[in-house]
Protein backbone atom coordinates (compact mmCIF):
# COMPACT_ATOMS: atom_id res chain seq x y z
CA UNK A 1 0.00 0.00 0.00
CA UNK A 2 1.79 3.02 -1.20
CA UNK A 3 0.79 6.26 -2.80
CA UNK A 4 2.29 7.44 -6.08
CA UNK A 5 2.02 10.68 -7.98
CA UNK A 6 1.65 10.43 -11.76
CA UNK A 7 2.86 13.65 -13.32
CA UNK A 8 1.94 14.73 -16.80
CA UNK A 9 4.18 17.38 -18.34
CA UNK A 10 3.47 20.14 -20.84
CA UNK A 11 7.23 20.47 -21.14
CA UNK A 12 10.26 18.76 -19.72
CA UNK A 13 9.45 15.12 -20.39
CA UNK A 14 11.06 13.27 -23.31
CA UNK A 15 9.07 13.53 -26.55
CA UNK A 16 6.08 11.21 -26.89
CA UNK A 17 5.97 8.68 -29.72
CA UNK A 18 2.78 10.17 -31.17
CA UNK A 19 3.89 13.75 -30.53
CA UNK A 20 1.28 16.00 -32.18
CA UNK A 21 0.04 19.08 -30.26
CA UNK A 22 -3.56 18.71 -29.16
CA UNK A 23 -4.75 21.73 -31.14
CA UNK A 24 -3.88 19.82 -34.31
CA UNK A 25 -6.09 16.84 -33.43
CA UNK A 26 -9.63 16.53 -34.72
CA UNK A 27 -12.41 17.45 -32.23
CA UNK A 28 -13.42 13.78 -32.15
CA UNK A 29 -9.89 12.76 -31.25
CA UNK A 30 -9.89 15.27 -28.39
CA UNK A 31 -13.23 13.92 -27.13
CA UNK A 32 -11.94 10.36 -27.35
CA UNK A 33 -8.86 11.37 -25.36
CA UNK A 34 -10.92 13.04 -22.61
CA UNK A 35 -13.24 10.05 -22.44
CA UNK A 36 -10.26 7.72 -22.06
CA UNK A 37 -8.97 9.80 -19.14
CA UNK A 38 -12.39 9.82 -17.42
CA UNK A 39 -12.81 6.08 -17.93
CA UNK A 40 -9.35 5.46 -16.54
CA UNK A 41 -10.08 7.45 -13.35
CA UNK A 42 -13.47 5.78 -12.92
CA UNK A 43 -11.87 2.38 -13.28
CA UNK A 44 -9.40 3.23 -10.54
CA UNK A 45 -12.20 4.28 -8.21
CA UNK A 46 -13.78 0.87 -8.83
CA UNK A 47 -10.54 -0.98 -8.10
CA UNK A 48 -10.11 1.04 -4.92
CA UNK A 49 -6.86 2.63 -6.10
CA UNK A 50 -7.91 6.21 -6.88
CA UNK A 51 -6.92 9.06 -4.57
CA UNK A 52 -7.23 12.24 -6.62
CA UNK A 53 -6.43 14.12 -9.83
CA UNK A 54 -6.28 17.69 -11.08
CA UNK A 55 -5.24 19.41 -14.29
CA UNK A 56 -3.22 22.63 -14.26
CA UNK A 57 -3.21 25.67 -16.52
CA UNK A 58 -0.07 25.95 -18.67
CA UNK A 59 0.88 29.34 -17.27
CA UNK A 60 1.77 30.10 -13.69
CA UNK A 61 3.57 32.73 -11.68
CA UNK A 62 6.65 32.58 -9.49
CA UNK A 63 6.09 34.21 -6.13
CA UNK A 64 8.42 34.96 -3.23
CA UNK A 65 8.46 36.75 0.12
CA UNK A 66 10.05 40.18 -0.07
CA UNK A 67 10.35 41.20 3.57
CA UNK A 68 8.12 42.39 6.41
CA UNK A 69 5.28 44.67 5.28
CA UNK A 70 6.14 44.40 1.61
CA UNK A 71 3.90 42.79 -1.02
CA UNK A 72 5.03 39.49 -2.45
CA UNK A 73 7.28 39.71 -5.49
CA UNK A 74 6.01 37.95 -8.58
CA UNK A 75 7.82 36.99 -11.72
CA UNK A 76 7.38 34.88 -14.81
CA UNK A 77 6.01 32.91 -16.40
CA UNK A 78 9.35 31.93 -17.81
CA UNK A 79 9.18 30.58 -21.32
CA UNK A 80 12.53 28.87 -20.81
CA UNK A 81 11.52 26.92 -17.69
CA UNK A 82 12.41 23.37 -18.54
CA UNK A 83 9.79 21.61 -16.45
CA UNK A 84 6.11 22.42 -16.79
CA UNK A 85 3.52 20.26 -15.07
CA UNK A 86 0.22 19.77 -16.89
CA UNK A 87 -1.59 17.73 -14.27
CA UNK A 88 -1.38 15.02 -11.72
CA UNK A 89 -3.10 11.92 -10.48
CA UNK A 90 -2.51 10.20 -7.16
CA UNK A 91 -2.96 6.43 -6.87
CA UNK A 92 -2.79 4.10 -3.88
CA UNK A 93 -1.53 0.67 -4.93
CA UNK A 94 -0.09 -2.50 -3.45
CA UNK A 95 3.11 -2.64 -5.45
CA UNK A 96 5.51 -0.56 -7.51
CA UNK A 97 4.84 -2.90 -10.45
CA UNK A 98 1.13 -2.05 -10.27
CA UNK A 99 2.00 1.67 -10.30
CA UNK A 100 4.10 1.14 -13.44
CA UNK A 101 1.30 -0.82 -15.08
CA UNK A 102 -1.25 1.95 -14.40
CA UNK A 103 1.11 4.69 -15.58
CA UNK A 104 1.65 2.79 -18.82
CA UNK A 105 -2.09 2.42 -19.26
CA UNK A 106 -2.56 6.16 -18.79
CA UNK A 107 0.24 6.84 -21.26
CA UNK A 108 -1.67 4.83 -23.86
CA UNK A 109 -4.43 7.46 -24.01
CA UNK A 110 -5.38 8.05 -27.68
CA UNK A 111 -4.11 11.15 -29.47
CA UNK A 112 -3.74 12.18 -33.09
CA UNK A 113 -5.17 9.63 -35.51
CA UNK A 114 -6.74 7.82 -32.54
CA UNK A 115 -3.41 6.17 -31.89
CA UNK A 116 -1.89 5.96 -28.38
CA UNK A 117 0.23 8.99 -27.50
CA UNK A 118 2.88 6.90 -25.71
CA UNK A 119 3.42 9.97 -23.58
CA UNK A 120 6.12 9.91 -20.89
CA UNK A 121 4.64 10.19 -17.41
CA UNK A 122 6.70 10.79 -14.32
CA UNK A 123 6.05 8.38 -11.44
CA UNK A 124 6.96 9.67 -7.99
CA UNK A 125 6.49 7.75 -4.74
CA UNK A 126 5.13 9.71 -1.76
CA UNK A 127 7.10 9.84 1.45
CA UNK A 128 5.15 7.75 3.98
CA UNK A 129 3.53 9.49 6.91
CA UNK A 130 3.41 6.67 9.41
CA UNK A 131 6.32 5.60 11.55
CA UNK A 132 7.31 2.05 10.83
CA UNK A 133 8.97 -0.13 13.39
CA UNK A 134 12.61 0.81 12.89
CA UNK A 135 14.44 -0.04 16.08
Amino acid at each position, binding site marked *: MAKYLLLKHYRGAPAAVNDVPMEEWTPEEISAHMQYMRDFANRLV*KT*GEFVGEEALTPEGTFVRYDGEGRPPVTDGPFAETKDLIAGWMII*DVDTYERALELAAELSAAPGAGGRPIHEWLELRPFLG*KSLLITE
Partner: protein
Amino acid sequence: MTPPPTPPPSPLPAGDELVLRTLTPAVLAVLVRRGADFAAAEDAVQDALVEAVRAWPKDPPRDPKAWLITVAWRKFLDAARSEAARRRREELVEEQPEAGPAPGVDDTLQLYFLCAHPSLTPSSAVALTLRAVGGLTTRQIAAAYLVPEATMAQRISRAKKTVSGIRFDRPGDVATVLRVLYLVFNEGYSGDIDLAAEAIRLTRQLAAAVDHPEVAGLLALMLLHHARRAGRTSADGAIVPLAEQDRSLWDTTMIAEGVGILQAALARDELGEFQAQAAIAALHADAPTADETDWVQIVEWYDELTRLTDSPVVRLNRAVAVGEADGPRAGLAALAALDDTGLPRYAAVSAYLHERDGDTATAARLYAEAARKATHLAERDHLTRQAARLNARLKEGS
Protein backbone atom coordinates in the same frame (compact mmCIF):
# COMPACT_ATOMS: atom_id res chain seq x y z
CA MET B 1 -13.19 30.59 4.47
CA THR B 2 -15.04 27.33 4.48
CA PRO B 3 -15.89 26.10 7.96
CA PRO B 4 -14.09 22.97 9.11
CA PRO B 5 -16.06 19.81 8.30
CA THR B 6 -18.28 18.73 11.16
CA PRO B 7 -17.49 15.26 12.45
CA PRO B 8 -20.18 12.63 11.87
CA PRO B 9 -22.59 12.50 14.81
CA SER B 10 -21.53 9.91 17.36
CA PRO B 11 -23.63 10.34 20.49
CA LEU B 12 -22.33 7.07 21.91
CA PRO B 13 -19.63 7.37 24.54
CA ALA B 14 -16.28 6.04 23.30
CA GLY B 15 -16.55 3.00 25.59
CA ASP B 16 -19.93 2.02 24.17
CA GLU B 17 -18.66 2.40 20.64
CA LEU B 18 -15.83 0.01 21.45
CA VAL B 19 -18.32 -2.48 22.93
CA LEU B 20 -20.25 -2.24 19.70
CA ARG B 21 -17.19 -2.86 17.59
CA THR B 22 -16.09 -5.74 19.81
CA LEU B 23 -19.41 -7.47 19.12
CA THR B 24 -19.12 -7.04 15.35
CA PRO B 25 -17.42 -10.33 14.42
CA ALA B 26 -19.72 -12.45 16.59
CA VAL B 27 -22.84 -10.83 15.15
CA LEU B 28 -21.54 -11.21 11.62
CA ALA B 29 -20.75 -14.86 12.30
CA VAL B 30 -24.32 -15.50 13.48
CA LEU B 31 -25.73 -14.11 10.25
CA VAL B 32 -23.36 -16.16 8.12
CA ARG B 33 -24.18 -19.24 10.17
CA ARG B 34 -27.89 -18.64 9.56
CA GLY B 35 -27.20 -18.83 5.86
CA ALA B 36 -26.64 -15.22 4.84
CA ASP B 37 -23.87 -14.83 2.30
CA PHE B 38 -20.86 -13.02 3.70
CA ALA B 39 -21.11 -9.81 1.66
CA ALA B 40 -24.79 -9.23 2.43
CA ALA B 41 -24.33 -10.16 6.08
CA GLU B 42 -21.47 -7.71 6.41
CA ASP B 43 -23.56 -4.89 4.94
CA ALA B 44 -26.41 -5.73 7.31
CA VAL B 45 -24.11 -5.66 10.34
CA GLN B 46 -22.78 -2.24 9.30
CA ASP B 47 -26.37 -0.97 9.01
CA ALA B 48 -27.14 -2.36 12.45
CA LEU B 49 -24.07 -0.63 13.92
CA VAL B 50 -25.23 2.68 12.46
CA GLU B 51 -28.68 2.17 13.97
CA ALA B 52 -27.18 1.28 17.34
CA VAL B 53 -25.23 4.51 17.42
CA ARG B 54 -28.51 6.33 16.81
CA ALA B 55 -30.78 4.34 19.12
CA TRP B 56 -28.69 3.30 22.11
CA PRO B 57 -28.13 6.68 23.80
CA LYS B 58 -31.90 7.13 24.24
CA ASP B 59 -32.80 3.49 24.69
CA PRO B 60 -29.85 1.33 25.77
CA PRO B 61 -30.51 -2.39 25.21
CA ARG B 62 -30.29 -4.86 28.06
CA ASP B 63 -28.42 -7.35 25.87
CA PRO B 64 -26.41 -5.39 23.27
CA LYS B 65 -25.38 -8.50 21.35
CA ALA B 66 -28.92 -9.88 21.07
CA TRP B 67 -30.11 -6.44 20.00
CA LEU B 68 -27.47 -6.26 17.28
CA ILE B 69 -28.22 -9.76 16.02
CA THR B 70 -31.97 -9.01 15.82
CA VAL B 71 -31.48 -5.70 14.03
CA ALA B 72 -28.77 -6.99 11.70
CA TRP B 73 -30.89 -10.01 10.75
CA ARG B 74 -33.86 -7.73 10.05
CA LYS B 75 -31.63 -5.50 7.91
CA PHE B 76 -30.42 -8.55 6.05
CA LEU B 77 -33.97 -9.79 5.44
CA ASP B 78 -35.08 -6.33 4.28
CA ALA B 79 -32.23 -6.15 1.83
CA ALA B 80 -32.71 -9.74 0.69
CA ARG B 81 -36.46 -9.17 0.25
CA SER B 82 -36.02 -6.14 -1.96
CA GLU B 83 -33.37 -8.04 -3.88
CA ALA B 84 -35.67 -11.04 -4.10
CA ALA B 85 -38.62 -8.92 -5.16
CA ARG B 86 -36.47 -7.66 -7.95
CA ARG B 87 -35.56 -11.17 -8.91
CA ARG B 88 -38.98 -12.69 -8.09
CA ARG B 89 -37.74 -15.30 -5.71
CA GLU B 90 -39.20 -14.29 -2.34
CA GLU B 91 -39.69 -17.86 -1.24
CA LEU B 92 -35.95 -18.26 -0.71
CA VAL B 93 -35.71 -15.70 2.05
CA GLU B 94 -39.15 -15.88 3.59
CA GLU B 95 -38.23 -19.01 5.47
CA GLN B 96 -36.94 -18.20 8.91
CA PRO B 97 -33.85 -20.32 9.26
CA GLU B 98 -32.89 -22.06 12.43
CA ALA B 99 -30.79 -19.95 14.74
CA GLY B 100 -28.19 -22.70 14.76
CA PRO B 101 -25.73 -23.30 17.54
CA ALA B 102 -24.51 -20.29 19.47
CA PRO B 103 -21.55 -18.67 17.79
CA GLY B 104 -18.30 -19.42 19.52
CA VAL B 105 -14.74 -18.28 19.27
CA ASP B 106 -14.34 -20.50 16.19
CA ASP B 107 -16.65 -18.23 14.22
CA THR B 108 -14.57 -15.20 15.05
CA LEU B 109 -11.47 -17.11 13.99
CA GLN B 110 -13.10 -18.06 10.68
CA LEU B 111 -13.81 -14.39 10.05
CA TYR B 112 -10.16 -13.51 10.54
CA PHE B 113 -9.17 -16.23 8.05
CA LEU B 114 -11.72 -15.07 5.51
CA CYS B 115 -10.70 -11.41 5.73
CA ALA B 116 -7.01 -12.29 5.37
CA HIS B 117 -7.61 -14.84 2.61
CA PRO B 118 -4.57 -15.30 0.32
CA SER B 119 -6.71 -14.41 -2.73
CA LEU B 120 -6.91 -10.83 -1.42
CA THR B 121 -4.25 -8.18 -1.99
CA PRO B 122 -2.68 -6.87 1.23
CA SER B 123 -4.56 -3.55 1.06
CA SER B 124 -7.89 -5.33 0.48
CA ALA B 125 -7.28 -7.77 3.33
CA VAL B 126 -6.44 -4.88 5.65
CA ALA B 127 -9.56 -2.90 4.70
CA LEU B 128 -11.86 -5.91 4.98
CA THR B 129 -10.41 -6.95 8.34
CA LEU B 130 -10.87 -3.46 9.78
CA ARG B 131 -14.49 -3.37 8.65
CA ALA B 132 -15.77 -6.91 9.13
CA VAL B 133 -13.72 -7.86 12.19
CA GLY B 134 -12.93 -4.42 13.59
CA GLY B 135 -16.36 -2.89 13.01
CA LEU B 136 -14.92 0.37 11.69
CA THR B 137 -16.94 2.32 9.14
CA THR B 138 -15.76 2.79 5.58
CA ARG B 139 -15.40 6.50 6.30
CA GLN B 140 -13.10 5.83 9.26
CA ILE B 141 -10.94 3.39 7.30
CA ALA B 142 -10.73 5.80 4.36
CA ALA B 143 -9.66 8.62 6.67
CA ALA B 144 -7.03 6.44 8.33
CA TYR B 145 -5.51 5.48 4.96
CA LEU B 146 -5.94 8.96 3.43
CA VAL B 147 -7.98 7.88 0.43
CA PRO B 148 -11.46 9.08 -0.64
CA GLU B 149 -14.39 7.28 0.93
CA ALA B 150 -15.66 6.17 -2.50
CA THR B 151 -12.32 4.51 -3.22
CA MET B 152 -12.31 2.67 0.10
CA ALA B 153 -15.95 1.61 -0.39
CA GLN B 154 -15.01 0.04 -3.72
CA ARG B 155 -11.92 -1.61 -2.27
CA ILE B 156 -14.02 -3.25 0.44
CA SER B 157 -16.80 -4.18 -1.95
CA ARG B 158 -14.34 -5.89 -4.32
CA ALA B 159 -12.70 -7.67 -1.43
CA LYS B 160 -16.06 -9.03 -0.34
CA LYS B 161 -16.78 -10.25 -3.87
CA THR B 162 -13.38 -11.94 -3.98
CA VAL B 163 -14.04 -13.99 -0.85
CA SER B 164 -17.78 -14.50 -1.36
CA GLY B 165 -17.34 -17.96 -2.85
CA ILE B 166 -15.02 -19.17 -0.12
CA ARG B 167 -16.44 -21.60 2.40
CA PHE B 168 -16.68 -20.13 5.83
CA ASP B 169 -15.90 -23.27 7.78
CA ARG B 170 -12.54 -24.13 6.32
CA PRO B 171 -9.54 -23.47 8.56
CA GLY B 172 -7.05 -20.96 7.22
CA ASP B 173 -3.43 -20.14 7.82
CA VAL B 174 -2.75 -18.13 10.96
CA ALA B 175 0.39 -16.67 9.35
CA THR B 176 -1.65 -14.78 6.72
CA VAL B 177 -3.83 -13.26 9.46
CA LEU B 178 -0.75 -12.20 11.43
CA ARG B 179 0.75 -10.49 8.38
CA VAL B 180 -2.44 -8.44 7.93
CA LEU B 181 -2.55 -7.43 11.60
CA TYR B 182 1.14 -6.52 11.48
CA LEU B 183 0.47 -4.26 8.46
CA VAL B 184 -2.33 -2.51 10.33
CA PHE B 185 -0.10 -2.03 13.37
CA ASN B 186 2.72 -0.55 11.29
CA GLU B 187 0.39 2.05 9.83
CA GLY B 188 0.44 3.81 13.22
CA TYR B 189 -2.20 6.48 13.46
CA SER B 190 -3.50 9.26 11.29
CA GLY B 191 -6.74 11.12 11.69
CA ASP B 192 -8.87 10.04 14.62
CA ILE B 193 -8.34 6.30 14.25
CA ASP B 194 -5.43 4.81 16.13
CA LEU B 195 -4.64 1.86 13.88
CA ALA B 196 -1.86 0.60 16.14
CA ALA B 197 -4.26 0.39 19.08
CA GLU B 198 -6.86 -1.22 16.83
CA ALA B 199 -4.32 -3.81 15.65
CA ILE B 200 -3.56 -4.63 19.28
CA ARG B 201 -7.25 -5.03 20.06
CA LEU B 202 -7.77 -7.33 17.06
CA THR B 203 -4.65 -9.37 17.86
CA ARG B 204 -5.76 -9.70 21.48
CA GLN B 205 -9.14 -10.95 20.27
CA LEU B 206 -7.40 -13.39 17.93
CA ALA B 207 -5.18 -14.63 20.76
CA ALA B 208 -8.34 -15.36 22.75
CA ALA B 209 -9.74 -17.39 19.85
CA VAL B 210 -6.69 -19.44 18.93
CA ASP B 211 -3.88 -20.88 21.01
CA HIS B 212 -0.82 -20.26 18.85
CA PRO B 213 2.63 -19.13 20.04
CA GLU B 214 3.16 -16.80 17.06
CA VAL B 215 -0.16 -15.03 17.74
CA ALA B 216 1.08 -14.49 21.28
CA GLY B 217 4.45 -13.43 19.85
CA LEU B 218 2.88 -10.79 17.63
CA LEU B 219 0.69 -9.52 20.47
CA ALA B 220 3.77 -9.24 22.70
CA LEU B 221 5.71 -7.47 19.94
CA MET B 222 2.91 -4.93 19.44
CA LEU B 223 2.54 -4.26 23.17
CA LEU B 224 6.29 -3.84 23.65
CA HIS B 225 6.48 -1.34 20.78
CA HIS B 226 3.28 0.47 21.65
CA ALA B 227 4.43 0.89 25.26
CA ARG B 228 7.32 3.03 24.06
CA ARG B 229 5.29 5.20 21.70
CA ALA B 230 5.18 8.30 23.91
CA GLY B 231 8.97 8.37 23.99
CA ARG B 232 9.53 7.66 20.33
CA THR B 233 8.65 11.08 18.94
CA SER B 234 9.16 14.59 20.28
CA ALA B 235 6.31 17.07 20.69
CA ASP B 236 6.84 18.33 17.14
CA GLY B 237 6.72 14.82 15.67
CA ALA B 238 10.47 14.33 15.17
CA ILE B 239 11.95 10.86 15.67
CA VAL B 240 13.76 10.36 18.97
CA PRO B 241 16.33 7.55 18.60
CA LEU B 242 16.01 4.69 21.09
CA ALA B 243 19.19 5.63 22.96
CA GLU B 244 17.94 9.18 23.54
CA GLN B 245 14.37 8.35 24.56
CA ASP B 246 13.05 9.44 27.95
CA ARG B 247 12.39 6.01 29.42
CA SER B 248 10.11 7.42 32.10
CA LEU B 249 7.59 7.98 29.29
CA TRP B 250 7.40 4.26 28.55
CA ASP B 251 4.28 2.44 29.71
CA THR B 252 5.67 -0.06 32.21
CA THR B 253 2.34 -1.84 32.70
CA MET B 254 2.11 -2.55 28.99
CA ILE B 255 5.75 -3.66 28.91
CA ALA B 256 5.11 -6.07 31.78
CA GLU B 257 2.08 -7.49 29.96
CA GLY B 258 4.09 -7.92 26.76
CA VAL B 259 6.95 -9.63 28.56
CA GLY B 260 4.54 -11.96 30.36
CA ILE B 261 2.81 -12.99 27.13
CA LEU B 262 6.17 -13.49 25.41
CA GLN B 263 7.59 -15.65 28.21
CA ALA B 264 4.54 -17.92 28.15
CA ALA B 265 4.88 -18.26 24.37
CA LEU B 266 8.63 -18.95 24.46
CA ALA B 267 8.09 -21.62 27.12
CA ARG B 268 6.29 -23.70 24.49
CA ASP B 269 9.50 -23.99 22.54
CA GLU B 270 7.99 -23.34 19.11
CA LEU B 271 10.01 -20.32 18.13
CA GLY B 272 8.80 -18.13 15.29
CA GLU B 273 9.61 -14.81 13.69
CA PHE B 274 7.30 -12.67 15.81
CA GLN B 275 8.42 -14.24 19.08
CA ALA B 276 12.06 -13.55 18.16
CA GLN B 277 11.25 -9.94 17.24
CA ALA B 278 9.31 -9.55 20.47
CA ALA B 279 12.30 -10.93 22.41
CA ILE B 280 14.49 -8.19 20.92
CA ALA B 281 11.86 -5.55 21.75
CA ALA B 282 11.66 -6.95 25.30
CA LEU B 283 15.43 -6.63 25.78
CA HIS B 284 15.22 -2.97 24.76
CA ALA B 285 12.20 -2.33 26.98
CA ASP B 286 13.89 -4.10 29.88
CA ALA B 287 17.00 -1.88 29.98
CA PRO B 288 16.76 0.90 32.61
CA THR B 289 19.16 3.01 30.51
CA ALA B 290 20.40 2.69 26.93
CA ASP B 291 23.89 1.83 28.23
CA GLU B 292 22.51 -1.13 30.14
CA THR B 293 21.01 -2.73 27.01
CA ASP B 294 22.02 -6.37 26.70
CA TRP B 295 23.33 -6.13 23.14
CA VAL B 296 25.04 -9.52 23.27
CA GLN B 297 21.71 -11.21 23.84
CA ILE B 298 20.10 -9.01 21.19
CA VAL B 299 22.70 -10.21 18.65
CA GLU B 300 21.85 -13.81 19.62
CA TRP B 301 18.18 -13.16 18.95
CA TYR B 302 19.07 -11.61 15.60
CA ASP B 303 20.97 -14.82 14.82
CA GLU B 304 17.80 -16.78 15.61
CA LEU B 305 15.78 -14.42 13.45
CA THR B 306 18.25 -14.78 10.57
CA ARG B 307 17.91 -18.55 10.88
CA LEU B 308 14.10 -18.24 10.77
CA THR B 309 13.73 -15.74 7.94
CA ASP B 310 17.13 -14.97 6.42
CA SER B 311 15.80 -11.57 5.42
CA PRO B 312 18.34 -8.91 4.37
CA VAL B 313 16.49 -6.38 6.56
CA VAL B 314 17.07 -8.59 9.59
CA ARG B 315 20.77 -8.88 8.76
CA LEU B 316 20.94 -5.10 8.40
CA ASN B 317 19.46 -4.63 11.87
CA ARG B 318 21.79 -7.31 13.15
CA ALA B 319 24.76 -5.25 11.93
CA VAL B 320 23.60 -2.40 14.19
CA ALA B 321 23.37 -4.76 17.15
CA VAL B 322 26.82 -6.21 16.38
CA GLY B 323 28.14 -2.64 16.29
CA GLU B 324 26.83 -2.09 19.80
CA ALA B 325 27.92 -5.45 21.18
CA ASP B 326 31.40 -5.75 19.63
CA GLY B 327 32.19 -2.21 18.51
CA PRO B 328 31.60 -0.22 15.32
CA ARG B 329 34.35 -2.02 13.35
CA ALA B 330 32.62 -5.34 13.91
CA GLY B 331 29.33 -3.73 12.91
CA LEU B 332 30.85 -2.39 9.70
CA ALA B 333 32.28 -5.84 8.95
CA ALA B 334 28.81 -7.37 9.42
CA LEU B 335 27.43 -4.70 7.12
CA ALA B 336 30.09 -5.38 4.47
CA ALA B 337 29.18 -9.07 4.59
CA LEU B 338 25.64 -8.11 3.67
CA ASP B 339 26.66 -7.14 0.15
CA ASP B 340 23.36 -5.42 -0.60
CA THR B 341 23.83 -1.66 -0.60
CA GLY B 342 20.46 -1.12 -2.29
CA LEU B 343 18.53 -2.00 0.87
CA PRO B 344 16.40 0.73 2.40
CA ARG B 345 18.27 2.12 5.43
CA TYR B 346 21.59 0.57 4.38
CA ALA B 347 23.17 4.03 4.08
CA ALA B 348 21.60 5.10 7.39
CA VAL B 349 23.07 2.11 9.23
CA SER B 350 26.43 2.63 7.57
CA ALA B 351 26.36 6.32 8.55
CA TYR B 352 25.59 5.45 12.15
CA LEU B 353 28.42 2.92 12.39
CA HIS B 354 30.91 5.26 10.71
CA GLU B 355 30.06 8.01 13.18
CA ARG B 356 30.59 5.60 16.08
CA ASP B 357 33.91 4.69 14.49
CA GLY B 358 34.96 8.36 14.50
CA ASP B 359 34.76 8.90 10.72
CA THR B 360 32.60 12.04 10.84
CA ALA B 361 33.08 13.06 7.21
CA THR B 362 31.99 9.69 5.80
CA ALA B 363 29.09 9.54 8.26
CA ALA B 364 27.86 13.02 7.25
CA ARG B 365 27.98 12.09 3.57
CA LEU B 366 26.16 8.79 4.20
CA TYR B 367 23.46 10.43 6.36
CA ALA B 368 22.74 12.88 3.52
CA GLU B 369 22.57 9.96 1.08
CA ALA B 370 20.28 8.06 3.46
CA ALA B 371 17.98 11.09 3.72
CA ARG B 372 17.64 11.19 -0.07
CA LYS B 373 16.70 7.49 -0.08
CA ALA B 374 14.31 7.63 2.89
CA THR B 375 10.77 6.47 2.22
CA HIS B 376 9.14 8.16 5.21
CA LEU B 377 8.83 11.82 6.01
CA ALA B 378 9.85 11.73 9.69
CA GLU B 379 12.72 9.39 8.83
CA ARG B 380 13.98 11.73 6.11
CA ASP B 381 13.84 14.72 8.45
CA HIS B 382 15.67 12.77 11.13
CA LEU B 383 18.45 11.70 8.75
CA THR B 384 18.77 15.23 7.34
CA ARG B 385 19.18 16.55 10.89
CA GLN B 386 21.86 13.93 11.57
CA ALA B 387 23.77 15.00 8.45
CA ALA B 388 23.42 18.67 9.42
CA ARG B 389 24.68 17.95 12.96
CA LEU B 390 27.81 16.25 11.62
CA ASN B 391 28.41 18.89 8.93
CA ALA B 392 28.31 21.59 11.64
CA ARG B 393 30.86 19.61 13.63
CA LEU B 394 33.11 19.31 10.56
CA LYS B 395 32.93 23.08 9.95
CA GLU B 396 33.87 23.80 13.57
CA GLY B 397 36.82 21.48 13.28
CA SER B 398 38.18 22.97 10.06
